[in-house]
């Protein structure tokens, strides 16, 4: 509140000063509308702020003055010198109160009723044709309970009255003002741009100073040493000074929080107390801007997820009032911000289940995880433990965004949580982004800077200490009984071209921490730490995520600044970030979110590999060229006693040379089969299928990265249509069932596949992308005969949907079929427990169709 008050005082003093001038201008030119509007606005602002801060005396005076000004503004009252004088006296009264406020921190005692009455009379009196009497009249007519100063004023002449009225407020203010000498620390406002420019200049100066120091050190010219030392000193002080101008107390970022917490408490029916410590801890305004939103988000989270309802708290033997604590303090060139609550803590069990349900990890992996690692799941994208979606949180965008934002400014985030006792987050961020301390290293004959914030320790490899070992080409190091994954910087940056021979067995390992992950970066040499000025890299280099910027060293050379987060992501060390190395991801089962699909990779036409879900392919055949016959232009083959049409995958198909063989993917329905001719079958892999950019090429759904290669994903339905027009038309025996099917499936690929397939089998299909969307249909009263649902879906997954359906509503007794990509042991039981009537493997069309028939027939007849 004190800071708010200080800001208010600064602003109000400025406002009052301009008001004086503006009012005088108005007096000279009573028809000057813009000035009048400006005056009105100023007074209105003061009134509004006073009301907000609970300064009732100021508010009343300002309010009365505003009323009169309002009439001036809308023209119902003429601006007269006497009127102006009256307003001016009100301004003076305001000044007096403000001065008292400045000196003592609270509104001085005093009575403004006379002044207010005069203003009100002017306002009500309307016609101020004869200003003097109007102003004087109220004093007499109202027979005020006259305060002393006004009593003095009453006898005086009309014109003199208003100034006297101003004195009414003055006495109250004068003693305080006189006593404290008023002056708060003087401030001027400087545009941020000026400060930024200053900072840039100082950065340049620091660089030049470093350069000079290096030169002089090399030459040993003693005449320069002393002045240079002075220069160095002054530069450092200047740097500090300019940095200070950019510093703002972190309390500025917290200003809105009390209000947010109050609203939150009302909305959630909780009792929440917000405790803020260290609000005057200063940090760079650029950093401050960047952490404002994450902080707000985290406080909301604490209130929503962290704290329990009063009943729950009572039951747990805690005070009803939950507490959110914010604490900020400096620690070694960094600022630490703690956001804590005394709520329920992170529920380890829930997180485990959620992680399992979302496929973030396997049961075995979770069993081997420390509590800390489990808690860190909350930083994963899309992870939310809130069971219900409230307006506050639970939308699955949350801690991962916070984490990304904090890391963006070179910070780290940690958490400590005890179930039942509460959770505390620790955000560690650099004081400033402009100048950081960095370790200068060399690899592959190039020098790089590593920001100190990420560096845990330096280890010399070889020479008696720890040595670099290898597990199948992957370098590791045993450090104090921990196996430390290593990354060779020269390899990572492809600097190896010259000396592949010189192995990294000797060198240094920079042990680096990114989130909970610790890894080592192998470098050839370590030089020194240096204060560097971070400069952003040129736009054409931004895509290289390994670097967070570049800088100029003391010797004038440019070097790149490594980004440990980028390195961790690129090498797959951090399981939290998206793993970019697809091959590595494939090797680490279950490490990637999302479901995996068995895919058949093949080549046809061009060099781009093609993929199709293995489940859709009935058989793979390798037919002798001679067996392919032509009926008209349609290639056919006699296959299992029937004629099977063959469709070439590449647009132009030449009959293969006699003696060669043709690879064919066979797709089959109950009674029909169709062969797709491809050039070569490459592989079968299990991969996360993430189709991007549906290019409008017929026959393909889009592209996906599979095994690290861009792969076209086949649109089966399209190719099947190529085999003959009647393929997907309702078949004679499969007459229209008229049954309505609701399909909940988040993957566009499977929706694409299932909708035509089911339609072809005679069903009316409605497809939605999530469980939530499905439930929305229920609310709208849509009715179906059966529900088919995917298990893994965003927002509300299949199990959740089943439970919601069984809870009640018009769908309560509908049969439900679960579909999932991978069946783990116990999967069927889980589905049934949730309320599904049956389950099938995804892309097993036959099984799905027969289960559909079976599920529907008893219900119908």
């Amino acid at each position: 509140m004190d800071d708010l008050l200080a800001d208010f005082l600064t602003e109000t003093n400025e406002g009052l000063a301009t008001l004086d001038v503006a009012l005088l201008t108005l007096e000279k030119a009573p028809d000057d509308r813009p000035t009048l509007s400006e005056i009105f606005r100023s007074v209105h602002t003061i009134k509004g702020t006073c009301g907000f801060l609970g300064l009732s005396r100021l508010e009343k005076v300002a309010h009365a003055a505003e009323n009169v000004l309002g009439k001036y503004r809308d023209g119902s009252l003429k601006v007269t010198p006497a009127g102006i004088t009256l307003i001016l006296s009100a301004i003076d009264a305001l000044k007096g109160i403000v001065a008292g406020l400045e000196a003592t921190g609270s509104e001085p005692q005093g009575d403004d009723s006379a002044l207010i009455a005069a203003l009100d009379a002017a306002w009500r009196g309307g016609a101020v044709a004869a200003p003097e009497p109007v102003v004087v009249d109220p004093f007499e007519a109202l027979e005020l309970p006259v305060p002393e100063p006004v009593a003095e004023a009453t006898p005086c002449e009309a014109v003199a009255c208003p100034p006297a009225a101003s004195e009414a407020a003055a006495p109250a203010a004068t003693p305080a003002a006189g006593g404290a000498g008023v002056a708060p620390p003087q401030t001027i406002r400087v545009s941020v741009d000026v400060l930024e420019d200053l900072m840039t200049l100082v950065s340049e100066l620091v660089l030049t100073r470093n350069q000079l120091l290096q030169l002089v050190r090399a030459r040993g010219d003693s005449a320069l040493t002393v002045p240079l030392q002075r220069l160095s000193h002054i530069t450092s002080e200047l740097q500090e000074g300019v940095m200070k101008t950019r510093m703002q107390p972190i309390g500025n970022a917290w200003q809105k929080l009390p209000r947010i917490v109050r609203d939150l408490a009302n909305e959630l029916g909780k009792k929440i107390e917000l405790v803020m410590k260290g609000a005057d801890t200063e940090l760079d305004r650029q950093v401050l801007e960047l952490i404002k939103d994450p902080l707000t988000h985290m406080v909301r989270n604490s209130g929503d997820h962290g704290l329990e309802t009063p009943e729950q708290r009572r039951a747990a033997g805690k005070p009803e009032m939950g507490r959110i604590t914010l604490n900020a303090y400096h620690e070694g060139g960094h600022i630490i911000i703690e956001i804590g609550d005394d709520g329920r803590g992170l529920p380890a069990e829930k997180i485990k289940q959620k992680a399992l349900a979302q496929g973030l990890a396997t049961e075995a992996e979770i069993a081997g995880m420390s509590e800390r690692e489990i808690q860190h799941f909350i930083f994963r994208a899309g992870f939310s433990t809130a069971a219900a979606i409230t307006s506050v949180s639970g939308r699955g965008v949350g801690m991962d965004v916070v984490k990304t934002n904090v890391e963006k400014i070179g910070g780290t985030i940690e958490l400590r949580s005890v179930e039942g006792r509460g959770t505390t987050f620790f955000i560690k961020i650099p004081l400033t982004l402009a100048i950081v301390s960095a370790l200068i290293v060399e690899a592959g004959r190039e020098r790089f800077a590593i920001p100190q914030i990420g560096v845990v320790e330096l280890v010399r490899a070889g020479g008696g200490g720890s040595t670099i070992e290898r597990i199948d080409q992957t370098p590791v190091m045993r450090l104090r009984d921990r196996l430390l994954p290593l990354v060779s910087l020269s390899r990572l940056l492809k600097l190896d071209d010259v000396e592949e021979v010189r192995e990294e067995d000797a060198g240094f390992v920079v042990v680096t921490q990114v989130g909970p992950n610790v890894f080592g970066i192998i470098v050839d040499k370590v030089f020194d730490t240096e204060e560097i000025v971070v400069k952003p890299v040129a736009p054409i280099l931004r895509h290289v995520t390994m670097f967070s910027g570049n800088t100029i060293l003391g010797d004038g050379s440019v070097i790149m600044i490594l980004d440990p987060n980028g390195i961790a992501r690129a090498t797959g060390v951090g399981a939290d970030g998206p793993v970019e190395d697809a091959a590595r991801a494939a090797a680490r089962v279950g490490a990637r979110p999302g479901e995996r699909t068995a895919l058949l990779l093949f080549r046809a036409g061009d060099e781009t590999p093609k993929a199709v879900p293995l489940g859709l392919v009935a058989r793979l055949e390798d037919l002798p060229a001679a067996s392919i016959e032509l009926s008209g232009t349609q290639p056919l083959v006699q296959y299992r006693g029937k004629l099977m049409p063959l469709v070439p995958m590449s647009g132009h198909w030449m009959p293969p040379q006699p003696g060669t063989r043709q690879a064919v993917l066979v797709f089959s329905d109950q009674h029909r089969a169709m062969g797709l001719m491809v050039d070569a079958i490459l592989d079968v892999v299990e991969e996360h299928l993430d189709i991007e950019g549906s290019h409008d090429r017929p026959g393909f759904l889009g592209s996906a990265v599979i095994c690290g290669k861009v792969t076209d994903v086949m649109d089966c339905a399209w190719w099947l249509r190529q085999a003959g027009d009647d393929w997907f038309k309702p078949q004679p025996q499969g007459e229209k069932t008229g049954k309505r099917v609701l399909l909940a499936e988040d993957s566009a690929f499977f929706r694409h596949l299932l909708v035509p397939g089911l339609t072809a089998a005679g069903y009316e299909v409605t497809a939605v992308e999530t469980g939530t969307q499905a439930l929305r249909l229920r609310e709208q009263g849509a009715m179906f005969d059966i529900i088919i649902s995917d298990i893994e879906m965003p927002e509300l997954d299949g199990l959740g949907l089943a439970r919601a359906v069984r809870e009640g509503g018009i769908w309560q007794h509908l049969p439900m079929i679960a579909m999932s990509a991978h069946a783990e042991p116990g999967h069927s039981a889980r589905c049934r427990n949730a309320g599904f009537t049956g389950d099938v493997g995804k892309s097993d069309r036959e099984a799905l169709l027969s289960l559909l028939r079976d599920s529907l027939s008893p219900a119908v007849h």
Partner: protein
Amino acid sequence: MQSEARASCTLPGTLPGAPTVADAAAEMVLTLTVAGQLCGVPVLAVRDILASQAITRVPLAPPEVAGSLNLRGRIVTAIDLRRRLGLPNRPAGSPPPMSVVVEQGGELYSLLSDSVGEVVPLPAEGLAGNPPTLDSVWREVSRGVHRQGDRLLIMLDVDRILAIG
């Protein structure tokens, strides 16, 4: 230092030699050569000309990016024109390239050229379109062709040269 001296004497030095009938429509062009080909960039786009500089390699950068260099405390990204134009690398032993520093979007870039010539005014009407047979890499970055004595000068479009990746 030497480079800047050169730059400052080159720029005004050439002006007296220019045709006295200063054509209002003439564009002042700095000529440079890349693998023997005469090219030009508008002199107004040029911020500096530097002799050979220590260039720091930027790992994982596009091949056209030769690295970064320090121009009085500002970091300049060096683009190797030979590589940008798909030409063979500078033969070993040839003199170090010159940096023609240009600015785009507040960022400085250096165009590494084999040599820098002079500043000449080229009348706008002398600019002919690209010959249709011009190699596509050149066509992409060329604004047109000027006849310069018995040689042809390709006007480079700085923005398009910097459109990498």
